[in-house]
């Protein structure tokens, strides 16, 4: 088994890197699109309890549908490939970012906002200098959750021809080559773990001011 794994890397190193890169880029694109949707939406709705609940529930409902089902539903609309995969993964990534953005802005300490207003900050100044930086750690925690979920679920994207490490798993399954399953599965696990650790250290850096 170990020999087969070593052999795979010797013969197909280039292909492997291509799949790894495909996996990472699908994940990055999906999370980026989710950020572009979830952050402005969260900031737009957080002041209103009703609007927040509607936005959270709406995306929460979409998230209940299994990603594989979303992928298959999207095939007749978008065909196969990267576009439906990114769409399905974005749907998965929006809720944690959206919910955390709403909670982060709702939980801003009132005395900070009063200090900002009282000193004569304009709305823009208080948003960019005070609100956004103070909300960011909690938003970032949501982004971390989204990244991990997307990396794991991007495996399914291979199923509809978007590439990525899932290719190895699906090929391994159809040919019953366990070495490919181990390489594919192990790589996805390792990628999630690395991304998680990387984001944790970024989180520690951006919240260093909280530690006395």
């Amino acid at each position: 088994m170990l020999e087969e794994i070593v052999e795979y890397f010797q013969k197909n190193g280039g292909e492997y890197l291509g799949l790894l890169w495909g996996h990472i880029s699908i994940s990055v694109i999906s999370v980026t699109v989710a950020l572009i949707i979830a952050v402005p939406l969260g900031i737009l709705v957080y002041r209103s309890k009703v609007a927040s609940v509607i936005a959270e529930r709406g995306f929460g409902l979409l998230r209940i549908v299994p990603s594989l089902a979303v992928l298959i539903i999207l095939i007749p609309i978008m065909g196969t490939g990267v576009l439906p995969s990114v769409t399905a993964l974005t749907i998965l990534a929006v809720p944690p970012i959206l919910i955390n953005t709403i909670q982060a802005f709702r939980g801003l300490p009132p005395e900070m906002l009063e200090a900002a207003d009282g000193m004569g900050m304009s709305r823009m100044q208080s948003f960019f200098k005070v609100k956004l930086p103070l909300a960011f750690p909690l938003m970032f925690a949501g982004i971390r959750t989204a990244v991990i979920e997307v990396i794991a679920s991007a495996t399914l994207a291979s199923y509809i021809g978007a590439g990525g490490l899932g290719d190895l798993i699906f090929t391994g399954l159809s040919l019953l080559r366990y070495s490919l399953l181990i390489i594919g599965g192990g790589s996805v696990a390792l990628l999630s773990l690395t991304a998680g650790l990387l984001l944790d250290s970024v989180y520690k850096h951006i919240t260093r001011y909280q530690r006395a």
Partner: protein
Amino acid sequence: MTAVEFKNVRKQFKNSAYPALDDVSFGVEEGEFVTILGSSGCGKTTMIKMINRLYEPDSGEIFLFGKNIRDENAVMLRRKIGYVIQQIGLFPHMTIAANIATIPKILKWDKKRIDAETDRMLRLVQLEPEEFKKRYPAQLSGGQQQRIGLARALIADPRVLLLDEPFGAIDAINREILQNELKAIHQKSKRTYLFVTHDIREALKLGTKVIIMNEGKILQYAPPEEIIDAPANEFVANLLKTAELKGSAQA
């Protein structure tokens, strides 16, 4: 010159039995240190938050150096008024230097001037610039944090400084020290201070004049000696008695 003037100001909050401010009129001369004393809910905080337009009156007018504050943009008005609150409200993600430089940055001072003034402010509040500038608020004690709060409010040399129970959450020893320092800073600057407190000893010790409030009305507005010698009514007299019971006949 009259620094702050209230003319028939009224403010009633919803779900409140009596107005927070009930037809209040008074004036504060430039250079005075006015302490505003009352129990919680008496309207004292409402009063100073109207001066920097965090609250707007239901009726009546407020003048700052003769100009109706309603004629000016609220944000521009606030940049000219210093503001210190009990919860301090330092920005935790900014260093001490960045916190103190908040208003100068808004006013777009050049960097050299900001640096020099930040150092000067830190010394004014008895903190060594080199030791504190690069720290974050979480690394400071409550008393040190409020010194920064003061430095932040004073750096643009506002003609009026509003202080809302600034020492209310600080331990007794540090409170005493901070009171003395604030008094000294005021005497040097000759700016106008309005200081809200519910501590009668603090009010009598710091104020060149004291406003005593209850249920949205001013009961007495006089220098501290006059309040002690001639309390305007029974409420004020009782208030003085409670302070003496705690063993502070001096003030």
